[in-house]
């Protein structure tokens, strides 16, 4: 099966909701899949990337607009 890219909309949501949603969503994905989390609360920039890296996944962030980001998580295990 091809790796899929899944979008998770967390726009308008404050901590800790985006991280809770990200954790849940990631468990439903397969290794190699990519989860793109959309956020606009800066607090989520401090915990989602760090948590995901600690779990061993690859993480990059795109600043889509002023104060709006996409956290791109490649599920590694």
């Amino acid at each position: 099966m091809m790796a899929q890219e899944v979008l998770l909309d967390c726009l308008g949501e404050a901590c800790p909701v985006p991280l809770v949603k990200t954790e849940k969503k990631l468990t439903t994905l397969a290794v190699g899949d990519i989860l793109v989390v959309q956020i606009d609360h800066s607090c989520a920039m401090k915990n989602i990337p760090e948590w995901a890296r600690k779990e061993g996944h690859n993480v990059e962030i795109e600043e889509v607009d002023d104060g709006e980001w996409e956290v791109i998580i490649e599920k590694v295990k």
Partner: protein
Amino acid sequence: MKKKVEQYDVVIIGGGAAGLTAGIYCGRARLKTLLIEKSLVGGLATYTNEIENYPGFPDGATGLELMNLFHKQAKKFDVRFKLTDVKSVRLEGETKIVETFRTIYETKAVIVAGGGKPRLTGAKGEEDYLYDKGISFCATCDAAANTGKTVMVVGSGDAAIEEGMFLTKFADKVIVSVLHDEGRMDCNEIAKSEALANPKMEFIWNTVVDEFTGEGRLEEVILRNLKTDALLPVKVDACFLFIGYIPNTEIFKDILNMNNSGYLITNEKMETNIEGVFAAGDVRDKFLKQVATAVGDGAIAGYGAEKYIAESETFHNQIMQDDMPGLVFVWNAVDPKCRDLMPIIEKYEAENQGKVRVIKVDIYKSAGIANRLGVFEAPCVAMIKDGKVFKIIKDRICEDEIIAAIE
């Protein structure tokens, strides 16, 4: 997957106050500058709601507002931003390598501005409740979620007490665990008297965290009294740790000089032990870790990187040329011995026009070029042939010696 390779003049690691300021200086100097930040641009300052001691903001500013202004200013000078973490570096040599998960950046200079991260207590169960499970390091991030709740703050320094007071605007009760005897705190006096008078704040003296417990989420912090060893379970909805910070320097181990705690050692020009590699801000071993000092460090590092790159260019494009032999006179304008030799050098220069390229380097103004030649004192003459230094004359500098060397 093959990694992309990109070239820059300067790569800045870390987008806090220090990195952003260095970026502003490098960008304004028209260097091709990349800043790599793994989390939120703005760094640790964005963890606080109130910055009252940064000059220029008499009414105070939130950390996020202040750092957004820094960010905007860096963007204005064309600093490029990449939001990912630097995994490894290779800093020896003239082309330095900074590697991320997708890309290899080749750069002439590197500015390390990785700052710090919160220190953990090391108590039992701690790992299980990090991130969204009840242990936090950021009051502004998690205060609203604790509206009407009971929270604990661990620590008694400025950050602990000031952030604790901020939390009382949301939480019903803020319980502070303090290491010291009753009435003793590490914070400034203003914060201390305000905190002691705050009806929502409660202090538990002489304690440290022994254990964090709870079903899935943090429910209880078990404190240990340092004098009696008695354990004191405290029911809380969240716990904020403000017991200091540790430097983000793991990737520089065995590469850059650091002190026992891992802070990078620099001189006052922010130079590390490797040429072309600078460090700025909280990541350095320094006396005061604040936004104001991070800004000062960043400015020096940015300026230093600019000078270093200019010097490299002079070195390669003017000094180490292979079209004809060269003579570099390293001198110091304030030293009479050096001044006495100048007529000899200038006479030689006039007589050998078009045959030998003569360059004078004032060691006081640019010790860097002299060092690259392997020269550490003046007066001194370095002879260049085929783009390489082939002889250094330190003693008895005179025309005959120079002529003999060239032939």
